[in-house]
């Protein structure tokens, strides 16, 4: 029992981190709201399903095209909606939330639900760890998730683009004076975040059927992880994912799957009371807390 909890808690934590990475890159690191994040995730799922089943494109090609399309969708949303309301926090939130709702509810209206909407796993079979069977897809998730988390850390600390992402969140005017085109960087950040959402979707969705409601759950989980980890900290995202991930698995085992999602909410409220800037958030600590 303990072994199952440990292994599946670990996997659940990596899944959370994976879903939160894109949101954290856009919102946490660059300070651009993207409340359409859950919609991007679902869009990638359905896009690769359509490419795979309607156009009969091989899976890995279809998945790559889906990631590209989602990033493009993010960039388009930035160019035509977000750019026009940049700087007005209220409008940013409302506009991106609206775009997300349009995408999600459109899929619901078009009748994209049912058992046929599944993505194939990368490779079949399972592995025996101790006495617990773990299928290869989950191994893939853990591998890619850890790789991306480390990659993101290196990217935002050691590349010019990554430093520019952090720069526009810390002080946009100073960033401008150093020759960083903040509008363009913010757009790239939204596109990257959407692309990461798509990667997460293609890895995670094969575990079950694709459903529109997942979009809301993904957004909630991503927000929870970002708030708890602290804005601007990629280590915080991983730490928060492990906290929530293990808490979720523990509640799942002790009191049933229904209570699993409620953990995120309780965690958000607790952390906002105790340490509003998150576990490891330093950036803008003073400005966000009044």
């Amino acid at each position, binding site marked *: 029992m303990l072994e199952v909890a440990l292994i599946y808690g670990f996997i659940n934590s990596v899944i959370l981190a994976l879903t939160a990475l894109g949101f954290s890159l856009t919102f946490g690191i660059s300070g651009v709201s993207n409340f359409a994040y859950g919609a991007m995730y679902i869009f990638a799922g359905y896009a690769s399903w359509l490419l795979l089943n309607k156009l009969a494109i091989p899976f890995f090609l279809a998945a790559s095209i889906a990631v590209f399309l989602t990033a493009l969708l993010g960039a388009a949303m930035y160019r035509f909606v977000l750019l026009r309301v940049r700087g007005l926090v209220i*409008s940013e939130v409302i506009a991106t939330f609206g775009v997300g*709702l349009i995408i999600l509810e459109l899929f619901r209206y078009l009748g994209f639900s049912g058992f046929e909407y599944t993505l194939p796993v990368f490779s079949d079979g399972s592995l025996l760890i101790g006495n617990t069977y773990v299928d290869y897809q989950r191994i893939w998730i853990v591998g890619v998730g850890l790789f991306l988390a480390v990659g993101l850390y290196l990217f935002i600390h050691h590349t010019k683009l990554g430093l520019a992402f952090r720069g526009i969140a810390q002080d946009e005017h100073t960033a401008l004076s150093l020759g960083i085109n903040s509008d363009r960087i913010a757009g790239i950040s939204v596109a990257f975040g959407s692309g990461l959402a798509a990667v997460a979707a293609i890895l995670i969705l094969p575990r079950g059927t694709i459903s529109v409601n997942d979009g809301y759950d993904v957004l909630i989980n991503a927000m929870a992880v970002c708030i708890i980890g602290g804005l601007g900290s990629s280590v915080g995202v991983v730490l928060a994912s492990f906290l929530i991930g293990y808490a979720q698995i523990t509640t799942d085992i002790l009191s049933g799957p229904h209570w699993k999602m409620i953990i995120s909410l309780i965690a958000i409220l607790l952390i906002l009371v105790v340490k*509003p800037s998150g576990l490891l958030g330093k950036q803008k600590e003073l400005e966000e807390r009044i």
Partner: protein
Amino acid sequence: MKQRRKERIDRGIKARSDDVFSLNSFREMLYVAVPPIAPVLLLIILPLVLPSYWQKVLISTCIFALLAMSWDFLVCVGMVSLGQALFFGVGAYVAGILNKLVGLPIWVDIPIATVLGGAICAVLLTPVLRLRGVYFSMVTLVLPLMLERIVEASGMFGGTEGISGIKPFPNPLVESYVIVFITLFALFAFRRLVTTDYGLVLKAIKDNDRAVMSVGINIYWMKAQALFIAGCVGAFCGAFMTHVYGFVGMPSFALDFSILPLSAAVVGGMGTFAGSFVGAFILVPFSEALRGIGGLRIVLYSFFLVLFIVALPEGIFHYIQRKYQQFERWVEVDK
């Protein structure tokens, strides 16, 4: 280089009627009196003339207008809620429980649900008050979804079945007039409230909270009060609709109650309350006329939301107000 620019000038009648001289002529008196009196007359006459189906539409229009005003009020204090369904659902459940399980009569349980619901919402959202920015939006987005899950998971208050058999209003005319008068009262009360000293403090919190703190005002307490007021209005909507449907259940936390008020307020124009009112009276009957589209409703609302935020952020009400008070002309300017 010559360029053209649009110049806006107050109409003569606006300039004259701003002052006490408006009493000089009937035309100017009408100019001042028509805008506030028109909605009142309209709402008082409508329940008498509408067929019974459209009376139900009128009721839900008023409900959404109230929710939109409560959203607008929170925006005035700098809090953008993405979950008006929270207020609605809490009010609905409190009223349902009081009526069905405690057995209170309808005229007692609605006021209690209004106040108690407002208080519950304010308490639930207190942790977020110490933060600025998008945290409030995030938590309000999460809360209704979570409460829905909690009800589903724990099976309390009827769980997925909900509570049915709640007593309806004695007759449809009473039902319509109660909601009509409350809506009109809320409209004028909110418009008055934000111009009082109290309202100025609330607006100042949005503009510069540190300045408000530095004059010795406890902004957390002020924000909690604003939340309570907005929560009361939202909870009243929930309590009222519980009695109209005769049922309360998980649909009370549905996304419709979050997104439609938001669209109504944005389409109508933020910050005036009259805008929310106008927006609701455009969007709700419109979507009712198109009710064949069913599930596309939320898509449509969101579409209008995004369209107006991007293309006409001032909203319809400000636009009409400008046309009513000013005329425009093109003038040549040097550049």
